[in-house]
Each structure stands twice: as C-alpha cells, then as structure tokens.
C-alpha cells in the first residue's frame, strides 16, 4: 500500500487551497467556495485511500464477479463513505449559502467582517 | 505574719490616708514651686485641702444623669484601686496594700479604670469640651504607653518577673542596684512617658486651660469636683510609688518614699516649666519617635 499517489496529492492541494481561500477571502460567498473546494479535496483523499493499483471499480460486472471481487476490486468502503461525505458537504454548503443570502438581505454586507457586532 | 482580713482593711485605710495627705501636700508644694519659677507668690501648700473641703461643702444643683455621677466615682475608685494594687513600702505590712491581687500588669491596666469611667461620666455631661478633652487625653495616652510598655518589658526581661515586690527586692543593696543605673535606657523611656502621663507641659493639651477650659472635668462642680481633686492626689501618689518601685529602688520606709516620690514628681515640674506645649498630634508623633526608640534599645539590650 503506497501512501502517496497523485490523487492524494491533488486532494491535499485542494484542501489547502480551499482553506486558504476560506481564511483569506473576506467575501462570504468566496469563503463558501473555499470550503467547497476543501470538501472536494477531502473527498479526493478519501477515494485515494481506497485505491489499489491495478484493480477495477467495485462494481459487480464482467470485470469482477462475486467470487473474485475481493481480489480484483479496489476497496469499496471509501467510495461509499465519500458518497455520504459529498451529500453532507452539499447540505452544509447549501445551508451556508442560504445563510449568506439571508444575512445579506437582513442588511449586512458581503464581507465577513461586517458581521462582527458580537465580540469580546 | 499574714494579717487578718479586718486588720488588713484597717491597714489599707491607713495607707490610703497617708498617701492622700501626702499627695495633696505634694500638689500644693509643686504649685508653689511653679509659682516661684514664674515669679508669683503662689498658693499656700495646704491650698488643695481647702479646695476639697470647699468643693465638698458646696450645694450641688446640677446633674446630667447617672453616668455623670458615676464618673467621679469611677475616677476616685480608679485612683484608690490603683494605689491598693501597688505595694508602697517594701517589707511594711501596713503599706503592702492589696498587692497580692496581681502583678504589674494589673496596676498598668487598672490605671485605665478611672480614666475610662471619668471619660464616660464627662461624656454624659454633654459638654463638647469634655469630649474634646477626652479625645485628646486618650490619643496622647496610647502614644506614651508605647515607650512605657517597652520600658516595662525591658525590666521584666531584666528581672525575669512582673511582680512589683520582686522587682523592688532585686534593687536592694545600694543605689547602684537601682534600675536607674542598671537599665538607664528603660528609665529614660519611662520618665518621658511619665511626663505624658502627668499631663504637665509639654503634654498639657488634654486639659488645655485656654481653649477648652479644663477638659474632661468641665461640667463637674461641688462634691463631684472634690472627689476628682482627691483622686488627683491619690492617683499621683500611686503612680509615683509605682515609678519609685520600678526604677528607683523602692522604699523600705515612709520617709524614703516621700523623698523619692517628691524628686520623681519634681522632674515633671522641672520639664513643665521649661517647655511650651505640644499639639496632640505632635505629642503622638513625639512619643512614637525618640522615646520609643530608646525603649526599643532598652529591650534589645536586655533581650539579646
């Protein structure tokens, strides 16, 4: 099991890019986009962890029948997990966006620092 | 050796009579001496007797209440009591009084009895000058108590006791055994405190005749004043005897006692005629300054 492959690296890179965006862009929408990118990065890492070189997708078809599945497929569990993670990520992003919209409507600005009334 | 109770009471009365007469004469003579210093003729030496008789004979018409009456009672009882707790003449059955009640501390604290009672009585008189006088007197007292206490502690360390009789015994056998010579610093501290205790100049602001006519006794007249005057004699006598016992070798007979106490008291007059008066706060600072340092030195010398 080699720990490093290209997908992992891209995933980490996306994660960092996403966090950088979320931490450096004052615009609320851009922050949300940053989180979406970071989510994607995390998902890629998850998928990459389940990847085994030379194996096929975990689908029972001509490439892998039920008997040989364990030997010929990549690990299916991370892929299942990633589905859940994607759904949850989507939900969070949607909620964030809807809050961003409502915050804007209620008279706030587009920048995160215009919501600093509560402090100390 | 131990006299019976009635006899002892009789002795106590005798002792008291002696000290009263002597105290009054002492006051009279000192007043006369002061007058001479100031270039006046002065009063006769027996004037205090006349004053007391006159005061006691007057009809008193004024009372401010029970505590007002009790004030002089407290005062005189305080003076007499103080004397009763001091053995006046070493080895004399007549003059040993009731000194078996307690040691030096009892005497030192009983001194307050009369002062406190008097202050309370004067207070009920409702005269502001009385209260001002008491305020000043008490304030000054706390200050001169410090060198006095240090001096007492020093001699307690020196003689290893607070028993007055034992302190006197330790000083027998020649005047070089007196505390005056064996522990001069303590004596100096105590004598400075004595000036404050006696209320002569420079510590006379308590009864400051000019601003607050006569301080605490302002409202007292007739027989109540007479009691206060009597007390002055007894109380002075008691304090003088105490000083004599502690610092000047005590006395083995009455004439020695008379001479010694006269001389001790004379220090007061001597200083009093030479110096002007301190304000109360100045007096407090004075006592807590050099005299206290002397007292500390006296303790250090014997303690370490």
């Amino acid at each position, binding site marked *: 099991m080699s720990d490093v492959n290209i997908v992992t690296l891209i995933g980490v890179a996306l994660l960092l890019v996403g966090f950088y965006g979320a931490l450096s862009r004052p615009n609320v929408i851009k922050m949300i986009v940053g989180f979406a990118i970071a989510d994607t990065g995390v998902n890629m890492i998850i998928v990459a962890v389940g990847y085994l070189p030379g194996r096929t997708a975990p689908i029972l078809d001509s490439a892998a029948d039920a008997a040989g599945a364990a030997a010929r497929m990549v690990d299916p569990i991370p892929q299942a997990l990633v589905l859940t993670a994607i759904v949850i990520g989507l939900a969070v992003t949607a909620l964030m966006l809807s809050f961003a919209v409502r915050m804007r409507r209620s008279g706030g600005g587009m920048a995160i620092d215009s919501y600093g009334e509560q402090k100390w | 050796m131990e006299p019976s109770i009635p006899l002892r009471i009789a002795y106590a009365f005798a002792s008291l009579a002696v000290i009263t007469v002597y105290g009054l004469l002492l006051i009279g003579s000192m007043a006369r001496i002061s007058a001479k210093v100031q270039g006046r003729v002065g009063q006769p030496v027996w004037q205090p007797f006349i004053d007391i008789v006159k005061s006691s004979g007057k009809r008193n018409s004024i009372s401010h209440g029970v505590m007002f009456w009790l004030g002089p009672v407290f005062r005189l009882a305080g003076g007499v009591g103080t004397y009763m707790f001091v053995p006046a003449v070493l080895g004399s059955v007549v003059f040993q009084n009731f000194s078996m009640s307690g040691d030096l501390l009892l005497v030192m*604290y009983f001194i307050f009895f009369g002062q406190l009672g008097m202050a309370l009585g004067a207070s009920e008189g*409702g005269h502001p000058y009385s*209260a001002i006088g008491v305020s000043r007197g008490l304030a000054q007292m706390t200050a001169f108590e410090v060198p006095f206490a240090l001096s007492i502690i020093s001699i307690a360390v020196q003689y290893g006791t607070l028993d007055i009789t034992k302190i006197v015994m330790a000083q027998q056998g020649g005047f070089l055994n007196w505390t005056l010579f064996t522990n001069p610093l303590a004596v100096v501290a105590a004598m400075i405190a004595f000036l404050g205790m006696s209320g002569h100049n420079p510590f006379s602001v308590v009864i400051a005749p000019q601003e607050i006519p006569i301080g605490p006794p302002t409202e007292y007249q007739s027989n109540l004043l007479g009691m206060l005057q009597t007390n002055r004699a007894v109380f002075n006598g008691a304090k003088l005897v105490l000083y004599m016992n502690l610092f000047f070798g005590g006395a083995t007979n009455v004439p020695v006692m008379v001479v010694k106490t006269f001389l001790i008291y004379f220090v007061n007059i001597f200083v009093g005629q030479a110096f002007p008066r301190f304000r109360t*706060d100045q007096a407090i600072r004075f006592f807590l300054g050099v005299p206290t340092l002397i007292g500390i030195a006296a303790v250090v010398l014997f303690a370490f």
Partner: protein
Amino acid sequence: MVTPLAIFAAFLATGFLLPLADKLGRRVSATLFWALLAGFAGLAAYYLASFVAAPGTLEIYTGGFEPPLVIALRLGLEESAALAAVAAVALLAAFSMRKALHEAPVSGMMTFLMLVMGLSGLVLTRDLFNLFVFLEISGIAGYALLGFDDRRLAMSAAFKYMVAGGIASAAYLVGVIYLYRLTGTLNLDLMIGSAGLEGAAGAAAVFFVLAALLVELKPFPANGWAIDAYEAANPGLGALFSGAQATAMLFALYKVFPLLSDAHLAVVMWAGIVTFAFSNLVGLRQTATRRMFGYSSAGQVGFVAAALAFGARYVEGSDFAWLVAGGLLVNHLLAKTGLFLLSAAFESDGDGSMKGRPGTLVAAAAGVLVAALVGLPPFPAFWAKWDLVRVALATREYAFVALVGAGGLFEAWYLFSWLVRLVKGGADETPEAAPVPVLRVGADGVGPVLAALGIAALGGLSAWTRGFTDPLFWAPLAGGLLFLALDRLPGKLKALLATAAIAAFGYFALPSMSEFQKLFALMILGGGALHAFAGGYLTGRRAGHFPLYVMTVLSLGYALVAESALGFFMAWELMALGGYFLVLQGAKGRSASMIYLAFSIGGAFLMMAGLQLGGGLIGGAAPSPAALALVGLGLLAKLGAFGLHVWLPGAYAEAADDFSSFFSASLSKVAVFALMAALAVFGEALPGGELAWRVVGWVGILGAVLGALAAIFQEDAKYALAFSSMGQMGYVLAALAMRDQMGWTTALYLAATHFLYKGMMWLSVAGASLRTGTRTMYLMGGLIKRMPISFVSFLVGIIALSGVPPLTGFGGKWLLYHSLIAKGWYFEAAASFLASGIAFLYLYRMIHSIFLGQPKDEHRTVKEAPFWLVLPQLLLLVAVIAFSVFPRLILDPIMAVVGARYPAAGFAFEGQTLVSSLGYWNGLLTIVVVVVVFVLTFIWMVMNLRKPRLVKQFNIVFAAERPFRPETTHFAFDFFAPYRRALGFLVRGRSEKAWTAVAGLATSVAGAIRRLYTGNGQTYALHVVLYVGILYLFLGVR
C-alpha cells in the same frame, strides 16, 4: 428492551410527518412534537433504570451482520445515562422555547428533533464514520436552529459556527479515512488495540480525529464562534448547546479515548483545563449574560474533558470517570440549563438588565444552580472536584490543580455577580432606594426549579454514596430546607424555632464531642442559638433569613464534629455559602458579599488542597508542612488575618445586624478551632520553621494594631466593630502562633471572652441602630436615657474588651503579655500594648457617640431595644460577670484542653491565683477590692450629694456661648482628628489597594485576552486552524 434504533426511526418519521401534521393545524404538529420528546425522555429513563438494575451492555448491529460489515451501536449504563441527560435538557429547553417553536415555521420543530436525534446518535454509535454523520446531522440542525428565528445576529453567529465546524469536519474526515486505512475498519471496538495505530502515522490520524472533536468542544482560545453562538442563540437553544450537545460531544470524545496514547490524553487534559481557567478569566469582563454563560459553558466543558483525560491517564477503572467527570458533567448540564432558562425568564435581551427580581423559591433555585456550577457543596461538582484535586495532587500535577482553582475562582466571581443582579433585580447599586418588584414568572420558573431540584438530589446522592449517613451531616441542609418551607411564618416564630433547632442540634452533637470541641460548641452553637433568638428583633417575615442562618449555624456545628476531612470541608464551604447569602441580604451587601465570596472560595480552595496534601496521599500520613501552610492560609483568610482581611469589614458591617453579631462573635471562632485542629493533625512544622511562626505571630499583631487603628476612624458603628473584631482576632492569632501552653490558653481565653463581649456590643448597637434608623454614630447620641439596658450592656462590653480590670478582658491581656514575654516575643508584646491602647480610643468613641453626649431631637422618644435583643445581651452579661468573678470557671476547662496537648505548664492556679513564671493574678480578689473601693467611693459621693436636680440637656457651662442644637454640640464627628493627622497614614487601605490591583490585573489580562475574540468569523477560523496546528506541535514535542 426496545431497540435504540427505534429512536432514530421515530425521530425521522416524526420529522417527515410534522409538515403534514402541521397542515392539520399547529396544535396537531405541536402535540406530535411534544409526544415524541416525552416518549424519548421516557425511553431514556427506562433504559437508565434497567441498566442501573441490571448492568451490562446491549450491542446492536444494524442489518443483521456483525461488524465490520455493519454499523454497530452500543447501549449500556453510560450510554443510557448520557441519553437521559440529553433528553432531560431537550425537554427543559423545548419547554423554555415553546413560544418561539410554536410561532416559527414548523421547520423549527423539525430541526429541533433532528438535533436531538443527532445527539442521541453521537452517544450510541460505535462506528467512527457514523459518528461523523451524526456530528454533521447535529451540527447542521444546530446551525439551522440558531438562525431559525431569522435574526441577523443569530444568522451571522451560525455562519461563524459553520465555518469552524467545516474545518473540524475536514480534519475529522481526513483522520478517519487514514484510521480506516491503517486499521482496516471503521468500528471503534475492532480498531482499539489494532497494530495499525502504532507509529507516527497512526498517531497523526488519531490526532486529526481528536482535534476535530476537541474543536467541537469549543476549546480556548479557538472558541470565538461558539461564544458568539451562545450569545446569539435563544436561551433555550443555548441550554441545549451547553447541556445536551456538550454531553454528546464529550461522550464521543470519551468513546475514542481507547485509541489515544498518553500524549494524546495529555493534550486533551491540558487543552481542557486551560480552557477552564482562561475562558473563565475572560468571562470576568462579561456583563452580557448569555455571552457570559457561553464562556462559562466553554470552561465547564473543558473542565469535564480535562477530568476525563486525567482519569484516563492516571486512574485505573471507570469509577473515576463516572464520579468525577460524570459528576462535573451532570452538574454542569443541569445548572447551565437552569441558568439559561432563568436568563430567558428574567432578562429580555440578555444584556444583564433584569425585568424584575425572583420570588423566594426561584431565587433559591437560582442560588442552588450558581452554587452548584461553582462547585460548592452539596452539589455533584463539589464532590467531583474534591476527588479530582486529590488525585491531581497525588500525581503531582500541581499546575493542573492551580488552574482548577483559578478557573473556579473566576467563574464564581462572575456567576455570583450575575446572581446578585438577578436576586436584587438589576445592576442598580442602590437597591434600597427603589425596591425592584418581584416578577412572577409562572411556568418559566418550572425549568430552573426542576433543574435545581435535580442537581440537589444528585448532590445528596453523591454525599450518601460517599458514606455520609450521619444525621448531623444532613442537619444543615435539612434545617435550611425546613426553614425554607416555613418561610411564610412570622419572623418571631421562626426565631424561636431556629433557636430550638440549633439547641436540638447541640443536644444531639454534644455527647460525642471532646472537651476541645465542647468549648467551641459553646461559642458557636451557644452563640448560634442566642443570635437565632435575637433574630426575632425585626418585624415581618424576614424572608430568606432563617433558612440561610440555620444552615450556616448547623454547618458550623457539623464542622466541629466532622470526622473526615471531606465532611469538614463540605461543612466549611456550606458555611461560607450561607454567610455569603446572609451578607448579600444586607441592604448594601452587594460588593461586600462579593469580596467575601472571593476570599472564601480562594481560601477554601487552598484549604482543600492542603487537606488533600495532608491526607496521607503524599509521603504517607506524616506531618506535612506544606499541607499545614495551605490549610493555614485558607483559615487565615477566614479569620481575617492582616493582609487577607479586606473582605472582613464590609462583610461584618453590611450583613443584617443580628448576623453581623453572630459572624463576629461566633463564626470567626471556627477558624481558630480549625487552626488548632490542623496543628494537631498536620504537626506544627511550617515551611520556614520557627521563623514562619514568628511571621504568623506578627501578622496577628499587625492585625491587632491596624485593625484597632482603622476602627478609631470609622463613623459607622458597624464598621468600627468589624475592625475591632479584626484586631481582637489578631491577638488570638498571635497567641495561637506561640504554640505552647501559655499561648494556647491565651488564645482560647481570648476567643471565648471575645465571643461574650463582642456579642453584647454588636447586639447593643443593633438595638440602637434599629431604634434610631442609622448606623452613623454622630447621628446618634445621648441614648443612655432612652436605652439604659443597651447602654449597660455596651458599657460592660467595652470594659471587658478594653482589658480594664476587673472584668474578663483583663484576664486576656494578662495572659497575653505573660505568654508573649515568657516566649521572648518582646516587641510583639509592646505592639500589643499599643493596640490595646488604641482600642480604648474606638471604644470610648463608640459609647460616647452613641449613648452619651447630646441626644438628638428626633431620638427623644425612642424606646429600649426589643426584648429579643435585650435577653441575649443579658445572658452574655451574666456570663461576663461570672467569668470575671470566677476566672477559673472558664480557665479550668481551657487549661484542661490545652494541657492535653502542651503538658509543660506555664500557667497554673494556686487557689484563685493564676501564677506564671513572671507574676500572678487573683481575679476574685481583684474584683472584690475593686467593688469594695467602688462601693465606698459611691457611698461617699451619695452622702455628699445635696439635693441635685436633673437639668435640661443644654444646661451646661458653655463659656459665653449658647449651645445651639444637639447636632452642633455633640462632639462626635472625626473624633480623633489629631490621631488621623499623626498616624492616619498607616490605615489608608494598602491591603485593599493591593488586592484591588490584583483584581485589576486579572480583569486587564481578561480584557487583553478577549481582544482575540474580534467577532470576525474568518479570524475565528484562523484560530481553529492555528489551534489544531499548535496542539499537533505539543504532541510532537512530547
């Protein structure tokens, strides 16, 4: 047993049904909502009951396979307890939010249910990825609930929360997937002990999971988002976050503990305790209530996490987690829930302004909740803290203990400040000017009262399970509750009942007492009964006074007979708490009570640490100087020793007059008792040896001098008496520090006589100020004619206190000087002379200003003090006279007690004469001589009186002036002006200034730290990222 999967099914089904049901009307959907919550609570209670009855665990595998193929759930005692906690808080929170939930769109109720379900899932699941899912479900529901009532503030807070939550989620996912990679499973039980966890990669993966959970627990300083959320949230939701969500998150954290290495656990422990200390420090600056509760919540959760990690690191078995972390958690969740609900009921917008003040029951509930949260007895956190500190000291985690103490002190300060605002009805500093009306909150009070009842029941259970079954132990609490129930009765009747209750306690406690204990029982229980009787002097009900008074006195009583350190300490804290509330009940008791509280809590913590150190845990049961030093410091604070006295004048003076008297005359003596007992237990050695004792002696003497000096400058009679007490206890301390037969005889004699005469003086002043309506002395005057008995009582009191023969006080002086000089403490003796001289000044000033001099026009018709005050004074008077005439009455028992400890006798009786190496004193003869002389003189005076007449007030010799009014003639104001000029510089409150500076430092540090919380969501996110990074570095360093 119903499978817990039904919970999820029911919540999900109801969630989907709600919008449909809502079409039939809000009543229908609301009924469904409440039915589900109630059913859930019932199920949780049922689970809890069955697992308590039959311990065990129920493993639930979804889908019929075994792990790792399926998600596993577990239900055991711990899980069911956590579920019950979640359910209880959810019910209370929903009840508090009922109006908002019923008015908002139905999605509000739906989200609420989803949140509760998510939290239940967090508790139940054994699968790490499933844990993530429930984390997100509860998270999303929580964000949504925050913003569901469409307030901009709440939405922006929710947004900040989401940003932080997003970071945590990413970290969690990365951690989990690598754990899966390394161990090949997501099931927690299969993962535990897996070889894959070993090595750097395993540690890193575990760390990411841990970091995510930690961030969700809102650690300082990466918790700005959480604080904002607490502040913005509906108080009910705040309760849900602080109570239920924290419980579930802590449970999740606890669940992954088996994966953690010691280094990981250390990170949790320190992160938690640092959060506790610093969150509470920052909380000091808060006035906005819900934000303050937010800081407190973050701190408390950190504390529980720290306790959990501490237990996992150092203690075998799960009992510690149960008792300590569980105790702290249940304490926190109930208390905080109750507080949030109270804030909802009494504050409109959580900015600290109150709509009104609560009635007695709700106020009592508020007191219970705050006291519980702060860790005072008898509530669960108190017992938990005791155990935690014990083990922490045994493992030499001193910094940990220090942080526990500091955090608790800070938290106590701001929570009790809030409580004061609540019960006094606002921030107004002069409440007596405009009494705040009582606000009847009706149903809104149910939640807090239920929470308080729950917490009290659990606290009682904790005590019972620790083996406290002695009825005397329970007497203080039972007494307090009984009198709370009787609070509607008239005050005078309650005074009689309280006297009887205290007497009954004494009747049952006395037989088991040693002579030493009996001596103090006389002062404390005897004084308690006397002052209980005196408590009838006020008209009206005196609402709330007697429950607290009885509790305080009886806990003092139990402190005397307690057989274990814990029992003693619990009584001690209870007494401090009761005293605090009694001071607070004074009209101007606010700031005084707070300062008293701070010193009580600080001192008590030192004492606890000392008791634990000396409890045989370190270095066996050998005498421990460190233990004695810590316990001693705590006791000196209670004694009001110089330097630690700044609470004393205010607390003594601002309490109700009768309690002031008890406080000074009786309560202060318990510190003397404890100090003597501590010396017996821990040995006499202090760090620093004899020199340290000399310093203690000087602390006492300085207290005597400066206390007396401060007293002479007071215009307020009660402050003068308070400073006087400080001075008198200074003598006691100095005498105690001598540690020989003479010193201790002196100390006990002084303590006993101080009890007698100070009680008379306080009660006499109480009568005077009751009749004149003022405590300011120069406004009184001449009361001797109107109140002769009070005058005589005060007179005897001052003669006794001043030490003038022949009354008892002189015995104290005589003993003191003899023992000091015999010990070689000469300068201490000289300073005592000064102090006792200064005492004359204030004593005279007091009796002159109050009872003598010129009566004021408006006081010409005042009456003698009520019988309720006079009788106790007369009893004390009789005792003073008896002890004056026969000093052996009191000295024989004292010398017997002291002789048991210090056989070498410096003082001994020969007949009636007390003899020392330095001199002698015959009390009986003294008083006989004095009385005879006095009587003779008196007779002489009476014989010479010639028909005097009582003259009018102004008939005085007033040189050429006419006295104008009593006010201008009564010389009483600034009585010792020359003294002030000469020595006033000594008493300009340097101790107060020093302590104010310390407090100022704490608040400035808090002010500086809270600048971290900029309110910017992005900055908070950065905090979270940096925090995780720094924690990782700590892990690496270890």
